[in-house]
């Protein structure tokens, strides 16, 4: 039975942000950037299993083949590539200012990392450990998502998303979503893209058609909506960064309830995601 109540709280050092599930699904890794640590929790119970000290992990993710674990160190301007099995540092890149979000090509060859304070999107070749290209994506890029052979990037400063050609790095499309477009997600059936818009002013979640990129509907969500997750009942769980709450949105009606959770909720992992086939990631909600 769902009570929408906090049932337990597990410790971290400072401010936990994004998460990644280990390939064997036994550990939920949570990045604690200012604590310089990666915390490991039981993805079923939330119990703390341990932690590893690594530099400034903000956005994190395993390559689709699980060979590498890539970390965007936003404060320190590093993109660190760790061995996926041992979490030992393999290569450190300094591709721009404030590495923010990341995603990978399905064949695991390339990573795409947004540089929030350089206004660029950078692509790294993980087979040669070299930088492939760096393109001016637009003002203050954040969320990154590989979709249908293209890379979508949220532009906070321009209130929308751009589509980038992953081969040459050219911008092929642009779509307005809302002020402060921050992060982007694809639903389980690959039918809808969601973009969280963090303001200024009215903040919202925009639903888009993943093929045409045209907006389908906008949901006003206060409190700086950030990461989302979709429950099996279709409800969308949304972190309200600046309202210390998680909103649970019914996408049919647009109604939502809120759950007070504590300071700065960021990434959202639902234990039901463990039932998903294939790699479980924060942005591809399948």
């Amino acid at each position, binding site marked *: 039975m769902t009570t929408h109540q906090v049932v337990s709280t597990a410790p971290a050092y400072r401010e936990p942000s994004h998460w990644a599930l280990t390939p064997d699904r036994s550990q939920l890794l949570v990045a604690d950037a200012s604590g*310089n640590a990666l915390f490991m929790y039981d993805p079923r119970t939330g119990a703390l299993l341990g932690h590893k*000290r690594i530099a400034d992990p903000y956005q994190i993710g395993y390559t689709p083949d699980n060979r590498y674990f890539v970390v965007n160190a936003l404060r320190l301007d590093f993109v660190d590539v760790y061995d996926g099995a041992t979490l030992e540092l393999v290569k450190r890149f300094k591709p721009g200012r404030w590495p923010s979000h990341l995603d990978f090509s399905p064949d695991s060859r390339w990573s795409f990392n947004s540089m929030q*304070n350089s206004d660029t999107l950078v692509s790294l070749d993980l087979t040669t450990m070299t930088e492939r290209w760096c393109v001016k994506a637009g003002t203050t890029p954040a969320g990154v998502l590989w979709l249908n052979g293209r890379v979508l990037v949220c532009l906070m400063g321009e209130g929308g998303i751009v589509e980038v050609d992953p081969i040459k790095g050219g911008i092929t499309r642009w779509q307005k979503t809302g002020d402060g477009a921050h992060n982007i997600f694809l639903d389980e059936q690959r039918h809808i893209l969601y973009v969280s818009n963090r303001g*200024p002013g009215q903040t919202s979640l925009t639903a888009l058609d993943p093929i045409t990129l045209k907006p389908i509907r906008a949901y006003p969500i206060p409190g*700086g909506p950030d990461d989302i997750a979709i429950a099996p009942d279709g409800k969308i769980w949304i972190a309200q960064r*600046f309202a210390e*709450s998680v909103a649970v949105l019914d996408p049919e009606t647009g109604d939502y309830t809120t759950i007070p959770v504590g300071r700065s909720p960021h990434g959202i992992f639902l234990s039901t995601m463990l039932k998903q086939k294939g790699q479980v990631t924060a942005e591809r909600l399948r």
Partner: protein
Amino acid sequence: MQSLDRLFSIIAGYMDQWAVLPVLYYFHWMAWDDLAFDWCLICVYGLFAVLVTYAICVPLELWRPVERWPDKKAVAVDVLYTLLNRVGVVPIVTFVLFYQVQTWATGFLVERGFIPPTLESLVPFLLGRPMLTFLIYALILDFADYWRHRLSHSFRWWYALHALHHAQRQMSFWSDDRNHLIDDTISFLWFFVIGLIIGIPPLQFPLLVLALKFVESLSHANIRLSFGPLEWLLVSPRFHRFHHGLRAAGRNSCNYASVFPVWDIMFRTADFRDEYLPTGDARAPEALATGSYVAQQATGLKLFWQALGKSWASLGIGRAA
């Protein structure tokens, strides 16, 4: 406490969304989006601290004042100091500078293969015990503040700056933030280094930090109040008033602790006499006591410069061969 914290976040969130972010976006500084919320939170907490201090200390000062003053003109400038220090630009600038330097220092160390520890990583027992962690941070910082304060009474040039704080004859709960900007800068650097070493989280314990600031404000209040048998545990208005007493001004003072008197007991500078002395510094120029904000700052600077010259001269610096 959690619901209060949530209320502050909601207020800060509105402030951020409707007042600060539009400015940042206008000037294309939206990369600071995340930190802008923290700036708002600092202002909200600061404002709340001032309101709570006001709500508690005003009735107490009316109820049991040590002194009654014909007018409170000299207090007015202390109100300005408080607002600038707790709600205005000073805490935000401090936060931004601390963030930048901490980031730079961490990056420098990480590139050399060393990840700076936090207190909880050095003492794993503290993980998940935020109250205890906070108490240890508070003890470390208060210990550091004891020595900063004691040294500010020991060096001629430093006391020339600190005299501004001591010159107030109408000492009230507003007087805690009454400091020369250079003195504030030295304090800032002092805590900066310690904060970097122990990896202090600037915004992890804001409510508790405000509780400590409340103790400091209360200790300056014009109240006939001691904590009786608990006097050794927390700095009371009586204990700190003795430090501000006319007899204690200058380079041979006592009761230097800001929050925990244990440091004064440990280093034999505590004086628990049950007396409520008149405050002020008889040797300080009148401008430091009753001048405007600008006059106080200018006079403090002049005194500092003169004292610095004397200190250099005493060291033989600047003399002709």
